[in-house]
């Protein structure tokens, strides 16, 4: 008996020692709270269960901004995680800091993982790439702004979801107003009505190839007639009771749609999962983001929003091999399809998109396909992405000025002049930090 006990203990000890020796532990800092966070944890658990060599630990770090700041502070202290989630607006900061990350394309190839950028759907391919089209960050939770609508409201008003803004202001909005609804709200003015306004209409957003060709002399091109006409129209919609703005916060603009007061809401394709899980008092569907026929008759694909995963530099080869293995797992069609189904974020590879199609996911939920359809529309010269430094602050300036337009504190003309001046000053400051 005693002997048996000793051998078991010894064996158990040997096993744990063995595991501890062989298993490489890596960390993953992310900004996915709530239900999204649970899905992230599930993916990490599945990865850990799928093999014995590596173990990844996800850590929730707060909002996108907080996660980026935490990652930067950790890097400066030499305590950086292996994988850091960075959102679209932070891309220029992290990609500009050469030596802070290991380009994901190099990481995968060096660790013997097959990599072909064309495996990725066209809308996500180059957003986190450098000017030579090398992928630096791994697209993770990719989304695009799409139009959600309350089906009962549309039926009551006798209209369909608008394809163009012209249709919205002449047909859809008046009918919805007559039926007792506020026609429209949206959740992110810089993202939906600025960045993606540019890509949808194929307008340049910044000089130097939208900022991809370097920081020196990059200037924002936001002060143009098309977008000013758009914002002038938005203020008219607001006066006519077609549009309401509930502040800069995302949720404050989504809630009135969920309550059935607002008939059309512009949000993220990644909001689909959350909306589906809620017990809404109506049925909803989604369609592509409208465009102005006066600006273009050939609307293009939009930019991706959301965030990507960066492999932080300064880790040893074993750690990097673990990170590469995790990225390989993450981009496998099965995992992408799981993530897509659970959250509504688009699958980032063609293979995963195929798998979802073949599985009948879009027959069951046609609205789930809208985001990826929009990202797969024809590309234009200006739809690859944009790269501007201190972009978080530039967005804050936009939010401030847009808020002032919508509360009548400033005019469209003055607001865009202010955005242009302040954004260019920030870009010039950022260019100085990069030398």
């Amino acid at each position: 008996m005693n002997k048996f006990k000793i051998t078991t203990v010894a064996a158990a000890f040997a096993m744990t020692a063995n595991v501890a020796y062989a298993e490489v532990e890596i960390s993953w800092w992310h900004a996915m709270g709530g239900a999204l966070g649970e899905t992230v944890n599930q993916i990490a658990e599945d990865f850990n269960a799928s093999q014995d060599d590596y173990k990844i630990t996800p850590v929730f770090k707060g909002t996108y901004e907080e996660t980026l700041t935490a990652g930067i502070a950790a890097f400066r202290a030499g305590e950086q995680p292996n994988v850091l989630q960075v959102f679209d607006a932070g891309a220029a900061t992290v990609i500009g800091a050469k030596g802070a990350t290991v380009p994901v394309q190099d990481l995968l190839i060096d660790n013997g993982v097959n990599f072909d950028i064309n495996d990725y759907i066209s809308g996500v391919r180059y957003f986190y790439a450098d000017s030579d089209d090398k992928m630096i960050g791994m697209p993770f939770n990719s989304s695009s702004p799409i139009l959600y609508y309350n089906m009962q409201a549309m039926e009551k008003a006798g209209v369909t979801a608008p394809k163009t803004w012209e249709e919205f202001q002449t047909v859809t909005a008046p009918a919805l107003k007559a039926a007792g609804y506020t026609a429209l709200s949206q959740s992110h003015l810089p993202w939906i009505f600025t960045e993606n306004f540019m890509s949808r209409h194929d307008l340049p957003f910044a000089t130097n190839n939208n900022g991809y060709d370097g920081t020196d002399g990059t200037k924002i091109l936001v002060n143009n007639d098309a977008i000013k006409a758009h914002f002038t129209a938005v203020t008219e919609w607001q006066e006519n009771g077609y549009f309401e703005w509930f502040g800069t916060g995302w949720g404050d603009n989504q809630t009135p749609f969920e309550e059935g007061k607002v008939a059309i809401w512009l949000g993220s394709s990644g909001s689909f999962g959350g909306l589906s899980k809620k017990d809404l008092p109506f049925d909803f569907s989604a369609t592509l983001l409208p465009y102005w026929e006066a600006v273009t008759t050939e609307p293009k694909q939009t930019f991706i929003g959301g965030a990507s995963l960066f492999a932080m530099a300064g880790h040893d080869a074993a750690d990097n091999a673990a990170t590469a293995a995790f990225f390989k797992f993450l981009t496998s069609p099965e995992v992408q399809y799981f993530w897509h189904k659970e959250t509504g974020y688009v699958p980032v590879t063609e293979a995963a998109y195929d798998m979802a199609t073949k599985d009948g996911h879009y027959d069951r939920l046609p609205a789930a396909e809208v985001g990826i359809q929009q990202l797969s529309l024809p590309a234009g010269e200006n739809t690859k992405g944009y790269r501007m430094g201190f972009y978080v602050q530039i967005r804050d300036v936009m939010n401030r000025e847009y808020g002032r337009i919508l509360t009548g504190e400033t005019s469209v003309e003055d607001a865009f002049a202010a955005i242009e001046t302040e954004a260019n000053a920030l870009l010039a400051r950022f260019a100085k930090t990069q030398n």
Partner: protein
Amino acid sequence: MKRAGFSTRWLPILLLVPQLAIIAIFFYWPAVHAVQSSFYLQDPFGFGSTYVGVDNYADLANSGEYLKIARFTLIFTVLVTFFSLGLALLLAVKADNVIRGARSYRTLLMWVYAVAPPVAGFIGLIMFNQSWGPLTELARSVGWDFKLGVNFNDTATAMVLVSVWKQVPVNFIFFLSGLQSIPKAVREAALIDNRSATGRFWDVTFPLLAPTGFFLLIINITYALFDTFGIIDTLVKGEPGNNPMTLVYKVYVDGFRGNDLGGSSAQSVVLMVLVLALTVFQFRLIERRIHYT
């Protein structure tokens, strides 16, 4: 009178060392760093920094937005200080007169003291919720279409209200103990000289409360300038947008949200100078004119 003293010179210094070390590590060292980095422009990841002289300060002085924020901070500080002191004094004078159930009244008035600023902000968010907040509905019932996070003045009002609500109990406790330390003889003498309660308050009670009031004035100014951070951050939901903000919140927004360390450091140096000026003002100008008993 017997004076206590140390027999050696080194013992007191030794005893002071922990305190001095804490001050040096947690105050002087970061302060020196802030001053230093305010003259540089830094890459967020710390790969390089460029010396830019006083550019960061010049940018601040030339920024219309920064001056707007400074103006808001001033108005906000005056309003918060005035109303939290005024309300607390009123409540303390009234509570001082209550005889029956005094203890329960006082406890209820002090209660909010235990609430942390972000929690106070969160309670504010609930009270001012756009679609069902009780205070929003109250405002609407009197024809004020109150919109937190949309309208600048409405958001500013909510910030002042929550900040005052949070600070009144602290002031109340100090004022009440100040009132209770006024000798009974003095009050009785005043009662003979002046029959008007208001007159007695301004002639006798208020001057005797001056040391407490002055101390609270300084405490409240620093509270409004710095400690309201949590309330502001919660009320704007972390999205500055077109919402009002104070200078301290701006330091955070630029440094920790925007990763512009040079610009943010320059702003915090400006605040340091402000605090220094406030301290000099406290000791040099006012302290002399108030008599502590």
